[in-house]
C-alpha cells in the first residue's frame, strides 16, 4: 500500500501485518487479545475485522501453546505470526522456541522450514510494573536458528516486519514499546535495507555509538549534545542482531577508532558484550581505546519510579565517550 503520511511505529507494524495478510493467504496472526481488542498496544487493530477470526484470532491463554501451535501450523503450510503480549510473558514458550522453533529446519536437514514471526514488545521506559519491561534479546540471539531484529524507526518497523514474515526462517521481532507512539512521515513503499544490514544513522568522525532498538534515539540525542560540545559522534543502528552486520559496524568503528555500545538490557553476557567482543577481535589495531559499554545494570528491571536510573541516558553515554582516552596514552 503506497502512502506518505505521518504514522506511529505501532501503525507501521499494523500496516505491515495487514499488507502481508493481504498478499499471502497463509499468513495468520494469533495470540492473546489480538482479535477484537486489537492487541494491548493496538498493533493488530482491525485485522480480525478485516480478515476474519480464522486469520487473526485469540487463543487460550498459554504462550507455550501459542508457540507450539505456530510450529504445527508452519509444518502444514501456514505462515504464523504470534504475539507474546509482553517480553516476560514469552518465557513460558522458551522450550518451544529453543528446542523446536530454532531447531526444526536443522533437525530435518531443511525438509521442514518454519516461517514463523514472533512479535515481542520489548524493553522499558514506559513506567510499566514488574515483568512488563524486560529486555530479553540476549536469550534469543544466543539461540542458533533464530533471526532477531530490533527496529528503531517507523520505516524499519514496516520493512523489518514485512521481511520477517516473508522469511523462510523463524524471526523474532523485538518491538520497542517506548517507541510505539513515535511518529514519522514515511513512504512505506520506499525500500529500506533488509534483515542482516546495519545502518549508519548519523555520520561522525571522533567516535562511534553502536545501538539498536530503544537505544537508537538516545544515541542520536547524545550525538546532538556532543556536537554542541564540538565532538563529532557517528551513530550506527544495528537493526539486525542476528545475522549481525560486521562489515558496516566494523567499518564504522575503524573510521573513528573509538566506540561505545549502547543497550538497555543487563550488560552481562548480552548483545552489547558480543558487539564489544567482535568489534575488538576485528578492529583491535584501529582502536585508540577499549570499546565501552553503556547498558542497563545487572539487576531485575526496576519499578517505574526508579527506571530512569537504570536506562542508558545521554549524559551516561557522553561520560563513556569521555573515557575513550582522548589524550592518547
Amino acid at each position, binding site marked *: 500500500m503506497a502512502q506518505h503520511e505521518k504514522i506511529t511505529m505501532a501503525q507501521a507494524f499494523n500496516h505491515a501485518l495487514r499488507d502481508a495478510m493481504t498478499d499471502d493467504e497463509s499468513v495468520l496472526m494469533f495470540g492473546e487479545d489480538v482479535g*477484537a*481488542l*486489537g492487541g*494491548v498496544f493496538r498493533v493488530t487493530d482491525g485485522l480480525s475485522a478485516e480478515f476474519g477470526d480464522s486469520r487473526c484470532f485469540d487463543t487460550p*491463554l498459554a504462550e507455550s501453546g501459542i508457540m507450539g501451535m505456530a510450529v504445527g501450523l508452519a509444518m502444514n503450510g501456514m505462515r504464523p505470526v504470534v504475539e507474546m503480549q509482553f517480553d516476560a510473558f514469552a518465557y513460558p514458550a522458551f522450550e518451544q522456541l529453543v528446542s523446536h522453533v530454532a531447531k526444526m529446519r536443522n533437525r530435518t536437514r531443511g525438509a521442514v522450514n518454519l516461517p514463523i514471526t514472533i512479535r515481542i514488545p520489548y524493553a522499558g521506559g514506559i513506567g510499566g*510494573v514488574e515483568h512488563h519491561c524486560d529486555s530479553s534479546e540476549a536469550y534469543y540471539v544466543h539461540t542458533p536458528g533464530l533471526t532477531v531484529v530490533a527496529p528503531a524507526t517507523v520505516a524499519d518497523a514496516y520493512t523489518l516486519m514485512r521481511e520477517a514474515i516473508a522469511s523462510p526462517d523463524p524471526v523474532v521481532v523485538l518491538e520497542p514499546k517506548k517507541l510505539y507512539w513515535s511518529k514519522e512521515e514515511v513512504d512505506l513503499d520506499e525500500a529500506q535495507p533488509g534483515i542482516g544490514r546495519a545502518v549508519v544513522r548519523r555520520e561522525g568522525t571522533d567516535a562511534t555509538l553502536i545501538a539498536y532498538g530503544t537505544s537508537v534515539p538516545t544515541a542520536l540525542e547524545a550525538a546532538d549534545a556532543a556536537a554542541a560540545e564540538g565532538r563529532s559522534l557517528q551513530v550506527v543502528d544495528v537493526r539486525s542482531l542476528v545475522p549481525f552486520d560486521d562489515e558496516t559496524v566494523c567499518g564504522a568503528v575503524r573510521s573513528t577508532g573509538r566506540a561505545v555500545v549502547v543497550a538497555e538490557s543487563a550488560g552481562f553476557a548480552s548483545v552489547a558484550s558480543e558487539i564489544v567482543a567482535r568489534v575488538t577481535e576485528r578492529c583491535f589495531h584501529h582502536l585508540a581505546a577499549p570499546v565501552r559499554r553503556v547498558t542497563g545494570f*545487572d*539487576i531485575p528491571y526496576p519499578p517505574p*519510579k526508579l527506571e530512569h536510573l537504570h536506562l542508558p541516558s545521554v549524559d551516561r553515554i557522553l561520560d563513556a565517550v569521555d573515557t575513550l582516552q582522548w589524550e592518547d596514552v
Partner: protein
Amino acid sequence: MPSHDLLPSDEPVQLLDQHGRRTEDSTHRFPSDQELLRAHEALVVGRRINEQAYALVRQGRLAVYPSSHGQEACEVAAALVMGDGDWLFPTYRDTVSIVGRGVDPVDALVLLKGDWHSGYDPTVHRVAPQATPLATQLVHAVGVAHAATLRGEDTVVMAMCGDGATSEGDFHEALNFAAVFKAPVVFFVQNNEYAISVPLARQSVAPSLAHKGVGYGMPGERVDGNDVAALLSVLGSAVDAARGGGGPQLVEAHTYRMQAHTNADDATRYRQDDEVEAWRDRDPLLRSEAYLVGRELLTEERRSAIAATAEEVAASMRDGLMKDVEPVASDLFAHVYATPTPQLREQAAFLDEELSREGAR
C-alpha cells in the same frame, strides 16, 4: 476416589438469590448472622477500596489498577475462611483479599504505585507477593503447603487465579503436584468471564472450570461468585477438607468483572454495555445487604458504622498514596543477592558517583 465424587454440581452453589432471599439449598451450611455481618462490612470496605484505588489512578497516584469491582464477594470470602496460620497466594487483582488478610492497603498498592515490586513482607501476614505471571503462583502455593505438611503444621494455602490462568501449563502442573503430594491447597478460580478481552468460550469448552479437578483426582465445586454466603460456605468446607487431610480442593466461582481489565483497558472494544448492565442486579453487596436488612441485622447504626470504617480506610489510602516516596537509588542493588556481587558493588558505586556529580551540577 470414584469420578462421580470428583464432579462438581451441575449448577453453581447458591445460598442467597439475587434478591437476597435464601434458596432451597439445604446441603450446604448456611453461615451464621455474625459471619454474614462481618462479611458484609468487608464487602463495603472492599468496594470502597476499589473505588478509591480507581480514583487514585485518575489522579495519577497509581500507575495502573486491576479492579475487583463486582468480584468483592470472592475477595472477601477467600480471606475470611482462612485461619491465622494459613497462606494466601493472590494475583494482581486480589488487593481486597490481601487487605482482608491484614495487609495495609497502602502497602498492598506499592506494586501498582510503582515505588517497588511489592510493598509488604510476605512472611508477616503469610501473603505472597501479588503474582503477575499467570498461574505461576499456584505452583509456589503447593510448595508452601508441602513444606507445612513435612513439618506437621496444619497450614492451608489459598491459591487464587482467574479463568484465563487455568489455560496455562503451570495451572496443570500445580494441580497435579498438589494432588500427587496431597498438599493442603484450595485452588480458587474466579471466573469473571474474561481474560482481558478474551471470553471464557475461547478459554475452555469444558462443562465448567471446576470439572478440571477430575483429571487430577481432585474434588471440584462450583459456586455463585456474587453470593457471599455461598462462597463462605463452599470455600469454608474446602479449607476444612484440605486441613483435614482431604488433599487439595478446586473451587470455581462464577462472577463478573464490572470494570475494564485495568484503567488502561477499553472494554467497549469487546463487550456490550447491556451485558454489563445485566450483572448490576447481581451485585454482591445488594444481595448481602438485602438479606441482612430483611433479617433486621443491618440497623441504621450498624450501616453508618460500616460506612465510617470504609471512609477511614479510603482516607488512609489517600494519605498514604498521595505521599511521594523519594526513590532510593541504592535499593536497585541492595536486594538482588544477599551480598552484592563485586560487579553490583562496582555498578552501585558508578551510579553513586554519577548522582553526586549531577547533584554538584
